[in-house]
């Protein structure tokens, strides 16, 4: 079948699948882009923060012992508890990461690539710790969240899980926007992202603002982790590796340091992967995503919506 014919046939399926997975990429990209915006640092352990969220949620779901036959209210409460646990665990882990892996290096004036290596090391250490504790196989999520098809448009189906992912992502973004744009804390972070020296002189507590940035990024990643776990019904010690890379791609695609850009980048990446995967052989779908990134970087190196980075002196 030709590429276009197959694309036409599977357009709606790819559209819905792409938006769902793209929302999760966006949640990961938010944390990466915020940290990069204020520290000019790629947090290579961000994928592991995401993975920790997926594990925490699985722990809560198993402990509560809910199953598909539980009452609707029971399932809703259990998923809410799992999501809160995931966000708390990922948020705490992200702050710990900043305190252990990045802050001491910054205090001693280490070059930025040293911090990058430190982050990579933490990434491997966290992965291997989880591999030792939980094994190297997949851990299945209990099938709690009912899989219902809500709407069928030609080849595409919108399922209850996709709706859950999109609602949660949208809610998180609105909340994030409120915090960053309309609170004192958010103003501090934005000031830091524009000019750290001036922000410090104006009385912004820089260490605290950085810590809060990591916390917010961790909360988003944790939410992404539990959604990813529910969507694919699994977690594993390597869960964060590929989504972490995709989140980074999404952040760069949209413009590093740019929050709406991260969301746009995530959704676009999800869509391009799935539309490309429909058109080309499935193993080439990552080629489509990364190829698009390459093109964007050639013609618009600052990303689609433009970089917003701290001024460095």
């Amino acid at each position, binding site marked *: 079948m030709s590429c276009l014919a*197959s694309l036409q*046939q*599977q357009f709606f*399926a*790819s559209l819905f*699948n792409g938006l769902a*997975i793209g929302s999760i990429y966006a949640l990961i990209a938010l944390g990466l882009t915020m940290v990069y915006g204020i520290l000019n640092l790629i947090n290579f352990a961000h994928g592991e923060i995401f993975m920790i969220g997926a594990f925490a949620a699985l722990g809560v779901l198993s402990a509560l012992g809910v199953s598909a036959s539980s009452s609707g209210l029971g399932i809703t409460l259990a998923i809410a508890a799992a999501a809160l646990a995931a966000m708390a665990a990922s948020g705490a882990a992200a702050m710990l990461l900043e305190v252990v892996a990045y802050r001491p290096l910054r205090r001693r004036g280490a070059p930025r690539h040293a911090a990058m290596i430190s982050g990579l090391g933490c990434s491997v250490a966290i992965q291997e710790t989880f591999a030792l504790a939980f*094994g*190297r*196989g*997949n851990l*299945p999520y209990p*099938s709690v969240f009912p*899989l219902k*098809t809500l709407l069928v448009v030609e*080849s595409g*189906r919108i*399922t209850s899980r996709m709706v859950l992912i999109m609602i949660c992502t949208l809610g998180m973004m609105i909340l994030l926007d409120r915090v960053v744009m309309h609170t004192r804390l958010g103003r501090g972070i934005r000031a830091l992202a524009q000019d750290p020296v001036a922000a410090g002189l104006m009385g912004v507590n820089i260490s605290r603002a950085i810590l809060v940035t990591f916390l917010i990024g961790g909360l988003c990643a944790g939410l992404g982790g539990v959604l*990813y776990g529910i969507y*694919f*019904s*699994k977690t*594993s010690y*390597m*869960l964060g*590796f*590929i989504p972490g890379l995709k989140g980074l791609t999404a952040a760069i695609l949209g413009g590093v340091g740019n929050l709406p850009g991260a969301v746009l980048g995530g959704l676009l990446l999800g869509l391009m*992967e*799935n539309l490309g*995967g*429909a058109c080309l*052989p*499935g*193993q080439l*779908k*990552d080629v489509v995503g990364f190829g698009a990134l390459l093109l964007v970087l050639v013609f618009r190196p600052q990303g689609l919506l433009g970089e917003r980075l701290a001024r460095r002196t």
Partner: protein
Amino acid sequence: MYLQDFKAMLNRLSKGFLATISLGALLASSNFGFAASQTIKIAYEGALTGPVAFFGIPIGNGVQLAVAQNQEALAKLGIDLQYVPADDQVDAAQAPTVARKVIQDADIIGVVGPIFGSTTNAVGPLYTQASVPMLTMGTAAALATKGWTMFRVVPNDDLQAAAVADYMTKALKITKIGVIDDGTQYGHGLAAAVKAQVAKDGGSVVVEEAIDPNGDDFSSTVSKITASGAKGVFLGASVNTETVFNRQLVEGGYSGTFFAPDGTLSPDYVKLAGPSSEGTYFTSQAAPVADYGGPKDGPLATFFNDYKAKFSADAQAYSAEGFDATSMIVAAIKSGVRDRAGLVDYLRSKDYRGLTRTYKFQANGEPESDTSINIYQIKNGKIAWLGASSDLTK
């Protein structure tokens, strides 16, 4: 160079010297009327730790059980039989190091394993050079073309793939089939052979694709399958990818037949793939264990009971084959074989009636007879044996 020559000469001299001494010792001991006592070891190379340990440990247990059951009988012949575990984690990068260790231990007469095609491929030249026979469960068809001291105790993947295609086209009368693989040597080899046999059987392959074994999102492949109208799908992959894909395929609205290969046949499958695994078919070279509806009496049932008594767990796929391979080595020792080269000759010429099949090898190391493949299906959340493919596709 000179130094090396000198070392080699020294080495030869010392060996000759040692041989003289040991010959003297042997003569001396026989003068006093003692039977010469000899230690013979059988190694098992497979995964005892790592991601595939769930698959490798039950085979090693089968080997260990066969050794334990024969120690007494061989002690009467003056032989101290021992089991040596060689854990390669089914990692082709680690396997050569493990194999060299096995080769260095001169008491090891033969190896049961390696258990995967990839690891067999990695260590084949090493064992062959040291004339160590390997009784492998690696099923990649190409392994038999290399002239190694390899004896495959199970039918190869070409036969397994043919059974998949035959069952779908002949028993289930499916003509539109999707063939997917994970791009690995194992998965891709199987998928290519399934495609070939489907064409031979008159079916058509409507979707063929490779997926990323490290990925989680297979939705574009699933959309292609549902759009193509395929009624049967085979995925050649390892258990983690297979179960994630199985779940997405069924959740994506596919209601046809799904086939998984032997490497994924384990009770974990149902746990990992969840309710979507209901109705999934498997092919496996392995004989059915008790849990899957294997025999309730006879030698195989006795083996299952002995296994459970010793390891407090049920035997799994290939446990009995591991036991059989070890028992064949023991039979060779009982017939007077005492060294590696002798064992290679024995395996090349003799046959052995085991618990699961009769073992007789062709010159290239492939099994000569009893090449049936078993078909399994998940029914009510449990793996059930349907029968041998040769009977089911008549």
